[in-house]
C-alpha cells in the first residue's frame, strides 16, 4: 500500500521534472517532424485539400502508407489562414 503510493509519488515527480525540462524539446522535435511530413503530404496528397500536385495514380499507390497521418494533417492545415504559413513555435494564436 505505502510502497505503491511512494512509487506513484516518485513517478509523478519524474513526470513533473520532465515537464519542466525535456518536454519542451520533445514538443519542438515533434513539430519539426510534423512540418517535414506536411511538405511530403502536400506534395503527394495535395489534391485532398484542393492542390493538384501529383497524378492521382501515384497518390493512390502512396495512400496506404500515409493513411494514419491524413486526419491529423488535414486538421492541422485546416486551422491555418494559408496552407504555406507556418505559425511561430508555441505562439499559436497568442
Amino acid at each position, binding site marked *: 500500500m505505502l510502497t505503491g503510493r511512494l512509487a506513484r509519488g516518485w513517478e509523478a515527480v519524474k*513526470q513533473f521534472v520532465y515537464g519542466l*525540462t525535456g518536454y519542451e524539446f520533445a514538443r519542438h522535435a515533434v513539430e519539426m517532424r510534423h512540418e517535414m511530413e506536411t511538405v511530403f503530404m502536400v506534395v503527394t496528397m495535395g489534391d485532398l485539400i484542393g492542390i493538384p500536385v501529383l497524378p492521382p495514380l501515384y497518390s493512390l499507390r502512396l495512400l496506404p502508407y500515409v493513411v494514419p497521418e491524413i486526419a491529423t494533417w488535414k486538421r492541422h492545415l485546416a486551422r491555418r489562414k494559408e496552407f504555406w504559413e507556418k505559425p*511561430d*513555435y508555441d505562439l*499559436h*494564436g*497568442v
Partner: protein
Amino acid sequence: MNSLLAVIIGVVTVYLAYTLYARRIDRNVIQSDPKRATPATLYMDGVDFMPTNRNILFGYHFKSIAAAGPIVGAIVAASLWGWLPSIIWLVLGVTFIGWASDYSAIVLSVRNEGNSLSAVAHRLVSPRTRRVLLLFIFFYLLLVTGAFVSIMAQVMDGQPRTHLGIVVLIAMGLLLGQMLYRWKVGLVGATVLTVGVTLVCILAGPWTEEFSKGFNAALNGMTGGAPIVTYFDPTLAGFKGAEAKIMPSLLFWALAISAFCYAGSVLPIWRMAQPVVYVGFWITALSMVLGLGGAALASFVKPEVAQFQIPAFRGWSPQLGPAGVMPLWPMLFVTIACGAISGWHALFGAVGTARQIENEADMLPVGGGSMLAEFLLGLLALLAVSVGAKGAPVGAFATGLGGFISVWGVPLQYAVSLAFAAFIVIVLVVTQLIFRVMRVTLTEWLGDVFPPCRNQHVASFLSVLLALLLVVTGTWVYLWQLFGGANQLMAALALLLVTVWLASAGKNWAFAGVPMIFMYVTTVASLLVTAYNLYFNVYQPNLAAGRTLPIIGSGLMVLISLLLVVAAAFIGIDGWRAFMRNLRRPAPAHKPAPARG
C-alpha cells in the same frame, strides 16, 4: 518576523486556497467532468492539440509562467511600501484572484474548443475587442522589454562579476541547441556539460571582476568619462530624485542585451531562444530551490541571514521624486503582478496549455496549482529582499538570496554571485522570448496596413528600437508599474471573458466577476497615477533642462499609459454590454457531454 514564519505562511496559504476554495469552485461552479471530451482529445493533431499527462503539463505550465515577474515586482514593492503590505497582497491576491484567473482562462479555452482569448473575445464580446487586445498586448510587451533591458543593463554595468557567467550562458545555449538538434546528443549528457560549465563560470565571476571593471573603465574612457545622456531619475537618492547619467559602459550593455534579444527573436527557436532558456532555467531553478530550502532552514542553522532587515511598513504613500505620488492603492496591486495575479498566465494558458489538457479534472491542478506554486516564487523574492536590505533593490535581493544559499555551506561571496546571475539569467531569457512574441504581435497588428512589418527583421528591429528609447528615460520603476498595470488589466480582461461566458452558460459568475471589477478599477487607476507621475516627475524636469531623448522617452510613456486607459475603456464598455446581453438570455438547456474517444 523571520524567513521560516514566512515560508510557513506561504505553504498554509497554498494548502487552504487549493482545498477550501479552488476545489469548491471546480466542483460546484465549473463542474469539471472527467468524462467530457477535451479539445486535445477531440482535435488531436499530434502538435498543438495533444493530450498530455497532468504531471508533465503541470511542470510545463509552471515553467512557462514562472519568470522574472514575481521576482522584480516583490523587490520593488518591498522597497516602496515595506514587506507587510507586500506579503498581505501576495497571500490575498493569489487566494482570491490569481489562481481563479489562471484556472478559468484554461477552462474557458477548453470549453470553447481550444480557442485563444482573443478568438473567444471576438465571439463573445465584440470584433473590436480583439483589435484592442492586440494593441494592448503590443504595448504591454514594449513596456516590459523596456523595463527589463533597463534593469539588466544597470545590473551588468554595476556588477562586473556577472559578465563572464552571462556570456558563457549564451555560448552554452548555442552549443546545446547544436548538440541536441544537429549532433543528436542525449539530453542528459548535453545538460550536464552546458549547465555545469555555465555554473562554474558564474561561480568564478568574482575572480574576473577586476578584468570586467577594466573593460567598463575602457569603455567610459572613450568619452573621457563624460556621460552620453543625462536625465532626471526620481528613484535615486533614496527616492528623492537626482541627476543620472548614461555612461558608455551602460549603453554598451543595453546594446549588447538588445543585440542578443534581436538574435533570439529572428533565429530559429531551436538555435538560440529555446536552449538558452533551458540552460538559464537550471541556473535559476538551482538558486531558487537552494534559496527556498535555505529560507526554511536559516532560522536553525544561520539565524543572522533569516531576520527581516527592512521596515514592515513604510507608509501609505511613500515619496518618489519631488512631485511623485505612490499611493498603496492602486500602485501596490500592479507593482506585484505575477506572484499574485498575471494576465500573461491567462494568455498563455488559453493556448499553450488548454490544448493539451487530457481530462477536465486536470484543469485545476495544472492551472490553479501552477499559479499557487508561482506565488511561492514571489514569496521567496520578497523574503530575499526583506532580509538582504543592502543597497539598491536588486542588490538587496541578491544579498538576501545569497544569504539563504550560503546556509547550504556555499561561501557567501560565491552564493551572492550565483544570486546575481540567477536574477539576470531569468530576466534575460524571458526578455528574448518577449521580443519574439512582440515581433509576432506587431506583424499581426500592423502587417496588413504596413507590409514591411511582415518582415521579421523589420518587426524585430522596430521592437528593439522602441524598447531602447524607453531605456534612456532611466525610470525603470515607472516602466515596471506601467507594465504591471497593462498586465493586470489583461488579467482583468481574461476574467471579464470568463464572467461573460459563465453568465451565458447560466452559471454563478461571482468568483470571476468580483475580482475582475476590483482588478479593472485598480489597474485603470494605477495607469492614471503613473501617467501623472511620469508627467510631473520625469517629463517636466527633463523638459526644463532641455534633454531631447529623455523628453521623447518619457513623453512616449505618458502617451502609452493614456492609450492603455482608452483601450481599457473600450474593452470595459464592450464587456459590460456583452455581460448584460448574456445575463438576460435564458440559460441553455443541458446537453449530454460527448463521449471521450
